């Protein structure tokens, strides 16, 4: 994801702004990192450049 996406992405639960924590990036993309809700503190992972903004209970790996 580009950093410019921060303007429009919000916490799926309370729609508040998110803070970006970068783990790995290229010149124009964040590849690994976290989006943290400025209100509820929930953390959403960014993996292989794709932010996962599913509500936390839909994100967990369910038992097979």
């Amino acid at each position, binding site marked *: *994801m*580009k950093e410019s*996406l921060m*303007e*429009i*992405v*919000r*916490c*799926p*639960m309370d*729609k508040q702004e998110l803070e970006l924590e970068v783990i790995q990036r290229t010149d*124009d993309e964040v590849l690994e990192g976290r989006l943290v809700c400025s209100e509820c503190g929930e953390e*959403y992972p960014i*993996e*292989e*450049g*794709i*932010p*996962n*903004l*599913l*509500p936390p209970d*839909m994100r967990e790996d*369910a038992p097979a």
Partner: protein
Amino acid sequence: MTVREEFDAWATEGRDRGMEDRHWHTAKHALARMPVEAGDRVLDLGTGSGYAGRAINDTTGALVCGLDGSPEMARNARSYTDSDSIEFLVGDFDHLPFADDTFDHAFSMEAFYYAADPHEALAELRRTLRPGGTFYCAVNYYEENVHSHDWQDSISVEMTRWDMDEYRDAFRAAGFHVAAQDTIPDRETEIPAESEFPTDEFATREAMVERYRTFGTLLTVGVVP
């Protein structure tokens, strides 16, 4: 099974590209009607392989967000494009991870009815579209298309089967104006000769003709007041 489990499995089996091929026959006609301008921001809801977002980005220069509940679908979609004005996100229809008034337009093909609560999905679209923004909602699974009624048997995610009136009513209840509704025929899916019937899917050739050439894809267009 959850949306994530079901469609991660589809993506891993490569069914995303198969859907793209089949859905393009009618999706392209819906896409061609959208009043997208260069610089607009457009949402592709349940993006699958991401073809609709790629087409919108290619033809209009709009910025596209492809959202899907399946991480594997989003990963595949991302691998099919180099455009730096398309982003893919994993997220749920009923919990859109976007600010109010973010999008100029939204498109969805064969995905909307998987929402756990389609009324909530419409409310979320209404919230994230700007005034004058449109939601182009295309589905092959709907009440009038009797040939779709048994699809639920082979999909573990619960599907909502509204008829045309119910789509209009639900759009209005969510605060959309309904600007258009019609069925777009699929003129491209090849229909075998009479002698090939019954097939696995169709008892008669007439049934298959009706499924594709008559019912095709139901498109409902909502506009935010």
